[in-house]
């Protein structure tokens, strides 16, 4: 009798496992202790090894692995690794245009210390308007906007080192014809 019950239980268990795609199942009973492995899990990598997909991410797109002095400006922005911008950062919502630094240097929002910033969030700018300064080798380079529109966000902060291609501002471009990021 007990055997038949056990067999019935076992059959139900097997059906359950199959239905849920479980490839391996261990159980201890007293105070539980279960171990479940689903079908289709990647072949066990060598100890400490990576699957090809994981390695590709490490070497390829994901990019947040690079140590860099140019990490995000504020703690809230660390999710968008500045060192791996150009697509790897979270894409700006509503198709906002990123103004990127064309040179390596130090970002300043004002023409001189204490002076009001060139632009503030909410300002409207035309293409060619000066947005900020990036200082390199003691030269103050005025960085101009490449689109017309409204300043939505200042990404870099004054005194921050920036690299080539690093996002400085987000602009809601005015025309339909947007520059691609």
């Amino acid at each position, binding site marked *: 009798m007990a055997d038949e019950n056990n067999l019935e239980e076992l059959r139900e268990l097997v059906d359950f496992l199959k239905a849920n795609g479980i490839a391996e199942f261990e159980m201890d009973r007293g105070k539980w202790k279960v171990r479940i492995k689903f079908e289709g899990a990647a072949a066990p990598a060598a100890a400490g090894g990576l699957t090809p997909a994981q390695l590709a991410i490490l*070497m390829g797109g994901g990019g947040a692995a690079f140590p*860099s002095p140019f990490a995000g400006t504020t703690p809230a922005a660390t999710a968008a690794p500045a*060192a791996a911008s150009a697509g790897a950062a979270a894409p700006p919502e509503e198709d906002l245009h990123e103004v990127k630094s064309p040179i*390596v240097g130090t970002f300043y929002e004002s023409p001189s210390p204490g002076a009001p910033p060139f632009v503030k969030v909410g300002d409207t700018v035309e293409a060619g308007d000066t947005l900020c300064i990036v200082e390199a*080798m003691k030269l103050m380079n005025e960085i101009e906007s490449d689109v017309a529109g409204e300043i939505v966000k200042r990404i870099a902060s004054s005194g921050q080192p920036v*690299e080539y291609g690093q996002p400085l501002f987000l602009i809601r471009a005015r025309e339909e014809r947007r520059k691609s990021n």
Partner: protein
Amino acid sequence: MFRKVLIANRGEIALRVISACREMGIRTVAVYSEADRNSLHVKFADEAICIGPPRSAESYLNVPAVISAAELADAEAIHPGYGLLSENANFAEVCRASNIKFIGPPPEVTRLMGEKSTARQTMKKAKVPILPGSDGIIESEAAALDWAKQVGYPVILKAVAGGGGRGMRICRNAEELPGLYQQASSEAAGAFGNGDLYMEKFIERPRHIEFQVLADEHGNVLSLGERECSIQRRHQKLIEEAPSLVVSSKLRAELGATIQKCLKDVGYWNAGTIEFLMDEDGKIYFIEMNTRIQVEHCVTEMVTGIDLVKAQLRIAAGEKLTDIITRPVTISGHAIECRINAEHPEKFTPSAGKITAFNLPGGNGVRVDTAQYAEGVVPPYYDSLIAKLICHGKDREEAMDKTQRALSQFIVQGIHTSIPLHQRIFADEEFRSGKIDTKFMERFAEREAARKAAEAGTLPTLTSPGISS
């Protein structure tokens, strides 16, 4: 010792320098173009700064961008690698003005030794034999005959205003000289509007021999022996070795001493290479100096046991040569380097793209310097060198055997490489005999063409099934 060094280069040499710094406890800053974002030199440096778009001119050659990056990262010194800005005296000056130590000679010395005519004069004064050339224009056929008689045939007539092989004639005896003089002159007049000619000694089958030097900033210079780089195609080195089979210890010692004295007088600092041509009679002539570390520095490292890049860093930090090289330099065994390029092994067309399989050979006396990896991308913007295979054995035979074995295990798929070309060269009798010169690749190409024609156009099977052709 420097706390932090910026490496103003890319690819395998950037990784080489970063590795040496890492071993010495020096923090490293890599600079990279957007095309190199996922490069190994970027991944393995402590810090990395993007300095521009893919084109070299806008990134790696962009002096303000490189200097700005060094200032931002607070790097004390810049190692320029080879190529790019390494022999740019202006860059070295900007470094000096920005209070950043340039790891190399002073700008004035780079200018002096980097410029062919001033370098020749400097060597001539130091009694280093230089390739005889007329000091000015050869005004007439009579003057040409005179000069050729003094120097000895063969000679070459060259257009003063010229280049690209035009207005040039090789002359092997006095009978043909007047006629060739006329031809060269008219061709030059037609091509460049100026028929003036000068003359140089011509060597039919020269061997390219170069000497490695290290100099500290206290006036001490040391020669580390020679390399032979005769296997070249269109003036691009393909295979280099140390020592040269045709340099006796006597020549090595004598020439080494002369070079040391000359560079000491000139005030040379850091690493450098002096290039010579050797003629069929074993006479050698200075051609030019490279005021930087070279691609093939590895073969010298293998036979001398001296880490040249670490020496460069220590010299630039002010150390004395006697503290860096504490024993007499000895040449031990034989080393050969193969440049693995991302190009078709027969057509030599560049092969950029994604590497889908990558296996490096290893083992006793086998060294691979590379910054590529599986799934890595070879960008089209830069030179095609992707790896260097260096094998060291007790003699040339063993070094060649190791190289053949290593090449058979060197798998690169997804792009074309020169690996199959090297395999054929190492199977070639003339190469194996060591009786080589800079015309070797031309003769080899002819032999290959003849062999293929004999096999009715089918490609030979390669030794390893893993290599795609």
